[in-house]
């Protein structure tokens, strides 16, 4: 078996949040015992609702947050053993909001060139040539290089962010909600561009999104996160055709497909909201789970896997 491009083992991260001047700081469990792997050339989709820890997981994989537990291996090497330049050549991010992720005071050309400058030892002419080539590759007129982000539309800005991520020819791109801030017609342009670039440049993506339809379109494998844990993982077709975890089922049932006449689904999830500062005992999904039994309230399920994938639920029958 070949080494997965990303392998994370039992990664956890907690934040301490001060809730008041004299209050005890609260412990927020963002990511808890997550193991994942991404094969070379694959697209791993991570889905889940706000606060499930998916963005924290992305930051851990990018090396922006040091996990409080577990280890991250990139191409077989420990992430914390790589220096920043090496890491930048392997893995790059594209974030959600192209309005806040680009420096408003710099020209597009300089923004895209930053990773090259940071590597050091690359001549100005070479930087210019590579930036122009990359701008053209993401569908931007190199003349736009002289502009500032404020002069560009949302879609153009996201193209700039993609150009910046790819200018070093990394192997992995972590896309954290890359199209959530965009209009549907622009979202489709960006998703198509990401798919094209992946094929041509042999990239692998970790693709984080709350939009299940988008994830189904781009991912080869999907992991579903709930309150910091992966509760189900399977190949995309399997997961969307036959979800097994009650949370995955509820998530899929909540998606409003553009098909009139079907009405609005009843998720049967109740009104309790997940709170990472207050993780319930037993299965952490049990307060919202329509299928919960007594055992779920006291006994935390362990991840179990079979040929259809992984699920963390007492009620899922393994093949």
């Amino acid at each position, binding site marked *: 078996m070949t080494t997965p491009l990303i392998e994370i083992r039992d990664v956890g991260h907690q934040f301490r949040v001060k809730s008041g001047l004299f209050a005890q700081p609260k412990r927020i469990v963002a990511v808890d015992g997550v193991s994942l792997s991404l094969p070379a050339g694959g697209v791993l989709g991570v889905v889940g609702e706000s606060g499930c820890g998916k963005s924290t997981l992305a930051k851990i994989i990018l090396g922006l947050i040091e996990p409080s537990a577990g280890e991250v291996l990139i191409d077989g090497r420990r992430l914390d053993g790589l220096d920043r330049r090496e890491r930048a050549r392997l893995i790059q991010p594209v974030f959600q909001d192209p309005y806040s992720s680009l420096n408003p005071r710099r020209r597009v050309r300089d923004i895209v060139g930053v990773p090259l400058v940071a590597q050091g030892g690359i001549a100005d002419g070479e930087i210019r040539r590579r930036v122009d080539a990359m701008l053209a590759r993401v569908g931007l007129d190199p003349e736009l290089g002289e502009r500032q982000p404020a002069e560009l539309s949302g879609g153009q800005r996201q193209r700039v962010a993609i150009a910046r991520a790819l200018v070093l020819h990394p192997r992995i791109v972590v896309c954290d909600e890359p199209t959530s801030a965009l209009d549907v017609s622009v979202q489709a342009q960006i998703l198509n561009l990401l798919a094209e670039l992946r094929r041509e440049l042999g990239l692998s993506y970790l693709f984080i999104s709350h939009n299940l339809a988008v994830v189904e379109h781009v991912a080869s494998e999907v992991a579903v996160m709930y309150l910091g844990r992966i509760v189900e993982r399977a190949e995309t077709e399997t997961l969307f055709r036959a979800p097994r975890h009650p949370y995955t089922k509820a998530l899929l049932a909540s998606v409003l497909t553009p098909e009139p006449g*079907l009405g609005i689904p009843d998720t049967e999830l109740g009104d309790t909201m997940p709170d990472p500062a207050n993780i319930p005992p037993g299965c952490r999904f049990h307060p919202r789970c329509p299928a919960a039994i007594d055992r779920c309230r006291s006994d935390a399920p362990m991840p179990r896997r079979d040929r259809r994938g992984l699920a963390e639920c007492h009620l899922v029958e393994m093949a």
Partner: protein
Amino acid sequence: MTALLEVEGLEISFGSLAAVRGASLQVNKGETHCLVGESGCGKSVTALSIMGLLARNGRRDARVLRFDGTDLLALNERAMSRLRGNRLAMIFQEPMTSLNPAYTVGSQMIEVMQRHRGATRAAALARAEELLARVRITSPGMRLGQYPHQLSGGLRQRVMIAMALMCSPELLIADEPTTALDVTVQAQILRLLSDLQKDLGLAILLITHDLGVVARTAHRVSVMYAGEVVESAPVAQLFTKPMHPYTRGLLDCVPVPGKVRRDQPLGSIPGMVPRMTQSFRGCAFVERCTLARPDCAGEIVRHRLAAQHDYLCQIPPDRVTAP
């Protein structure tokens, strides 16, 4: 079907920018009308202008702007403020920015009732508690004393809805009410709105960019592009027989779960929305339209496919509906 809100030839401009250019729509009693479009198409300013809440530099003009027979164009600010929050109510996308963080839920909810109905504090609080329970908030009595930051996003949006219902409005304008919420919560809020509509006979003008929300909630849909309503139809018609190339393009852009093919690119609309000025003539979609002809630069006549289905495009329907 009786019209509750009639808008004809609505024009809104901010300086030289024409945000809305002759939009018309009609919301019937007890019906959900979805106004759908992308950012900058003018859907939110349309809503704000109906409520008389445009920013000071915004100019509003219309042939007809009538609510339940009352000409809104003829009302002064005092008369309009007697309608607003009373017979016409509005909820917004981000409930946190629409709620005042310094006041409790209860004190914000009762204000509207004390003002419009001269209700006593006790009566208004009782009504607020009843409505919080009605929007399925648990322990409503306790919630009245809480501040907005103590509530989750879904709860805040329920509070906004309950607040909008305090004076039993006939029309609720909801501007992207579920866009900031998670999918499971979105489904719950939309179900709630639909239940309330059935029970209270509420008419809803729902503004959204999400075609999934449109398909599942609307009776009637108006598609906006660059300040115009380019197509208007009953929901089933719009999805099965889209006539305007923009409507069709929008529908192709949306990945449909269970029907997506990963190896195929999504349909997309090239280019971006133009910035419109008042002097613009012809079809605003022409630069992005694959079917455009030279005469698209001239005046475009509204075509009618059925009694309830019209669109602003002159290209023969067979060219639009052909695969």
